[in-house]
């Protein structure tokens, strides 16, 4: 890689005309304190839902695990979903949601490890799904954002391909700021997994700067918090 070293040499000689200040990183990692106090938690949930609705998301409230399952079925019925893709949960078992959907005669797609020749089929199934359901790793209260660390059984395409998304998050994983969430995910996960911050349904303002919701990503985003 001769070119690389040449450019590095260029960069180096360019910099040496003036001594550079030392790279002093204060390493101010914001500690991710678990939210213990109930009032603080309620406040964060309220802030999160407010910000989410500002960017066009629809907040379906905070639920117990059982109520979450009912919420998923009600939503699937309301949008007349025939096929739903459900990613694995983190704090909540996705099994109950899948079972309940199947009971209601809705096809359930369960992403899993695939061989190369199966990939296209699974992708086609996810693309044909009417609804994608997934548990987010964290949420940012100040911006109404979900943070999703993708994985084999929780692939990114759940939040790309279906026209409607239902994303839920555990109440104690809502944090006040982006800095805290990024620090909670940590450098190792950013190097090993595909991480995404999702703030509302896809949108554009490319025509006369007028906001239109629903471009290439999901057109609708429903959200819930699990207590």
């Amino acid at each position, binding site marked *: 890689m001769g*070119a*690389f070293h*040449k*450019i*590095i040499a*260029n*960069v180096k000689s*360019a*910099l040496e*005309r*003036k001594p*550079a*200040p030392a*790279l002093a*990183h204060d*390493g101010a990692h914001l500690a991710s304190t678990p939210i213990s106090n109930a009032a603080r938690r309620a406040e964060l949930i309220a802030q999160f839902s407010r910000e989410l609705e500002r*960017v066009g998301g629809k907040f379906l409230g905070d639920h117990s695990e059982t109520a979450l399952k009912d919420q998923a079925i009600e939503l699937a019925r309301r949008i007349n979903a025939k096929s739903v893709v459900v990613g694995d949960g983190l704090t909540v078992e996705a099994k109950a949601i899948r079972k309940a959907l199947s009971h209601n005669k809705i096809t359930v797609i369960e992403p899993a490890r*695939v*061989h190369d020749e199966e*990939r296209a089929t*699974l*992708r086609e199934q996810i*693309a044909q799904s009417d609804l994608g359901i997934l548990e987010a790793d964290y949420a940012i209260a100040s*911006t109404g*954002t979900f943070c999703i660390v*993708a994985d*084999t059984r929780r*692939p990114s*395409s759940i*939040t*790309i391909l279906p026209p409607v998304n239902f994303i839920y998050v555990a109440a104690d994983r809502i944090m006040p*700021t*982006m*800095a805290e969430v*990024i*620090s909670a995910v*940590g*450098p190792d996960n*950013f*190097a090993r*997994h*595909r*991480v*995404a911050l*999702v*703030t509302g*349904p*896809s*949108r*554009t*303002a*490319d*025509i*006369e*700067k007028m906001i*239109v919701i*629903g*471009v*290439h*990503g999901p057109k609708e985003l429903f959200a819930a918090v699990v207590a």
Partner: protein
Amino acid sequence: MAAHPKHDFFAASSAAVEDLELRRKLENATGRHLHHVAEMRAEFPPFDDERATARKIKEEAIAHLDELLIQLKDRLEANGCKVFVAADAAEARDYIVDVAKRCGARKVVKGKSMATEEIELNPALSAAGIEPVETDLGEYIVQLRRETPSHIITPAIHLSREDIGKLFAEKLQIEYTPEPEVLTAAAREKLRSIFLEAEMGVTGANFAIAETGTLVLVENEGNGRFSSTIPDTLVAVMGIEKVIPKLADLSHFLEILGRTATGQKLTCYTNFINGPRANGDPDGPREVHVVILDNGRSRMLADPVLREALYCLRCGACLNVCPVYRRIGGHAYGSPYSGPIGAIVSPNLFGAAAAHLPFASTLCGACRDICPVKIDIPRILLHLRWKEATGDNGIPQVEFSRRVQKTRRAMSRFARMARHPIRMRLLTRLGALAAWPFARDGYLRRMPGAFRNWTRTRDFRAPRSRR
């Protein structure tokens, strides 16, 4: 489109100034944007602190660019990416076309990327028989019109919804409508199948984190997410200045970027590209190529004044506040990078063809005030003007600078006169007398010869002799 050597800025900007319809569209869109930005900043008190922090991180990052680039390359390779460092546009282009050929791509879906405009990737792909498809709505619109983007954030800012309605009616065979919702839905429908069949995706990168070897791609429509996740091969193109040291630095940039670029707290999607998919993963590309582009940037780095321009986040806010950009639009600049920051970057990336752009500014300083990393744009523009006028910029002198030198000689003659009160008074009397025959109704509307340019765009009050 790199700055075209035949592009005539004077002709293009004069024509644009006369285009009242263009002015209406630009005022409309830039006005809306500035309104949103003001709102966002007002409701986020830490904005100025975050700005200062982001600026500091950029200063340190650029001062240690060599070390950071080595670290980034190592980390990206450890994550399984193939890294190619391109000295210039041709090297980058050739590499990407070669990757596309090797992976057998017939269609390439592109997320929004100014770096790929800079290296003129689309014509190179087309020439190799590969179809590049722009997927950002604004980029898609200008591609259908066979145009280039006229703004780094809002590529179709020069078009009204009626223009786009007519375009879609003709090219996508839909019924004419000026409704943005319907037009957006039509583009979604059309591009969806292309996304699923394209063999390769090309994106830019807003940041590259050296610590983790992760690229960060900020967008709203989901097209960047699509392009970087669904096709089997991914090529991400970034300038050498995009690298930041640590993961913990990122939030400082994200807190200010969305707020200034589009007036959003955070854009809809922030995608992190780490590397190829793990064995058995349902999605993510099999191969990830990262093209790190120099193309004149290390030359900018060597100049202590110009170096500051490498802090730019490409948010596009300086275009929207610029009184010159707001009158002439992006195409008049003849470079993919227009507006105040474009006037700095373009001459350094494209050489003599863009050497006159630093003069296309009123130096009012609105760009410096809105810049999220506080780049002193007027200072750099003055510096570039100085370099151009003195021939110190290393690029061949163009005709324009001869004109600058002529002006300089005239000004020094004037200065000699103006130092003596009696001569000065005599000169003004003579001037008033000489102008008198051209006065009509108390105004000078048209002057002959060397004075023609003074009255070309404005009327002067006719001088009156004072007793």
